[in-house]
């Protein structure tokens, strides 16, 4: 899932402070699951903004809603009727949702209410970690199911580097050394031979480096 975290409220206030009406739009997808941008967060933010405006002596309107997904048109179309009531929308969806809203409502400023961070997993309640960088060419089959691109600070294809210490990355004792994990896992799988085989330079063209990406599934199209 996509993991996001709420933007600092002061940043959002800076974006909307001169407006008279704002819609806070949550998304029921990933950002709900990572507790960053669902209905709850929309209500909390809207309440905070209303209080902000009120004490500024402004009679601004701040409403909240949450859409099933902001990355699909039929769902964002639900705002078609209401959008005119607002000067701007603060979207709590991931960057994709924010942009999709912006495309649809081209005359309205659409502001991001969260920082979209990574593709990751829930470690425990309130803790998420990164697992995937969406490079477009998955190599997990060769690395024991642990991705060195997402989990090595230097995306090394042939790690670990000399900075690995007690299974932790040189950048922080909080971060596991991805290559240490790969090694342990390959050992468990009895595939340590893979570890000594140098991996060739990666083709990054499938990644963001190849420009904005697009996928077409022919069979799904008419």
């Amino acid at each position, binding site marked *: 899932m996509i993991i996001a975290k709420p933007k600092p409220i002061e940043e959002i206030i800076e974006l909307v402070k001169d407006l008279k009406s704002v819609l806070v739009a949550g998304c029921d997808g990933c950002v709900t699951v990572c507790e960053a941008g669902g209905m709850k967060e929309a209500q909390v933010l809207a309440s905070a903004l209303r209080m902000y405006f009120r004490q500024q002596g402004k009679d601004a309107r701040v409403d909240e809603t949450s859409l099933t997904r902001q990355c699909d048109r039929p769902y964002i179309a639900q705002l078609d009727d209401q959008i005119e009531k607002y000067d701007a929308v603060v979207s709590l969806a991931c960057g994709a949702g924010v942009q999709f809203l912006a495309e649809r409502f081209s005359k309205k400023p659409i502001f991001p209410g969260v920082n979209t961070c990574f593709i990751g997993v829930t470690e425990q309640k309130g803790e998420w970690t990164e697992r995937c960088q969406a490079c477009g060419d998955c190599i997990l089959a060769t690395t024991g199911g642990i991705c060195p691109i997402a989990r090595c*600070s*230097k*995306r*090394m*294809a*042939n*790690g*670990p*580097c*000399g*900075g*690995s*210490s*007690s*299974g932790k990355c*040189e*950048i922080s004792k909080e971060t596991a050394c991805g290559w*240490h994990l790969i*090694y342990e896992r390959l050992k468990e799988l009895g595939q*340590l031979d893979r*570890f*000594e*085989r*140098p*991996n*060739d*330079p990666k083709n*990054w063209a499938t990644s963001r480096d190849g420009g904005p990406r697009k996928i077409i599934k022919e069979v799904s199209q008419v």
Partner: protein
Amino acid sequence: MSTNNSAKTPSKLQKIMDAGHFGVTSECGPPRGADGRIVEEKANLIGDYVDAINVTDNQTAVVRLCSLAACIRIKQMGFEPILQMVSRDRNRIGMQADILGAASFGIHNMLCLTGDHQSFGDHPTAVNVFDLDSTQLIQTVKMMRDEKKLLSGFEMKVAPEMFIGCAANPFADPFEIRVARLAKKIAAGAQFIQTQCIYNMDKFKLWMQQVVDRGLHEKAHIMAGLTPMKSLGMAKYMKNKVPGMDVPDSVIERLAGVPKDKQAEEGIKMCIEQIQELKEVEGVRGFHIMAIEWEEKVPEIVKGGGLYPRPKVD
């Protein structure tokens, strides 16, 4: 790619070690400014006592005068430079271009590194590239040299001739994979290895034994890394603060046992004793003396270690 690591290059360092002599290298860190004379001053201090001079590449992710320009200066002084290259700051296009540029100035040694993470340096908000890692950089240089091809497959008329080196840290965790990783770099094409500075001799010997057991010392020249301790404070800092560094308590105790004004002298003495001890260790083919901001002591260490004068080769 070919696994032939014995490719001959015009490198003097290679020739000295191939001839069975201990190789000696030292390093010089370029300044954080445009004053190229500093490089020359440092090179002058050590040039006659070593076979080649490493020039660091934005070491610890701090911006410095570029390694390539500093290498050219050293080359023009008549000394032999080792171009260090980290894959953090340039992609494969930039790095191959720099390798070609270096070769055009007659630079024939390269040390291929991944590089410290930028979060340690003076530009922690910078993007990192890591298009390739050190192993892949080794592969790349080897391909350019042996196959005369760029990574794209483009065939060059004149290829760079590089004696390819890399680093190895016998002390990083997990210890059990350190030799495996060295094997991997050698498999990729590394011809000489400069190790992390050694203080824990027992652990180094254990590592070296594994290297020898696997016959890796016959595929590449292992150069033991040494950094003399300037003071007790430095020893403690290295022990506690520098990742991947293994400083045993005996080193601390020995320095603590002498008066403060004698500690530097003791540090040099310890370094020389290490050289003498390491000469006897099977597989050790040279020494890489990293006297950090203490280049003037390199001659004393080289002499003390019985490594002077340096042999002459064609």
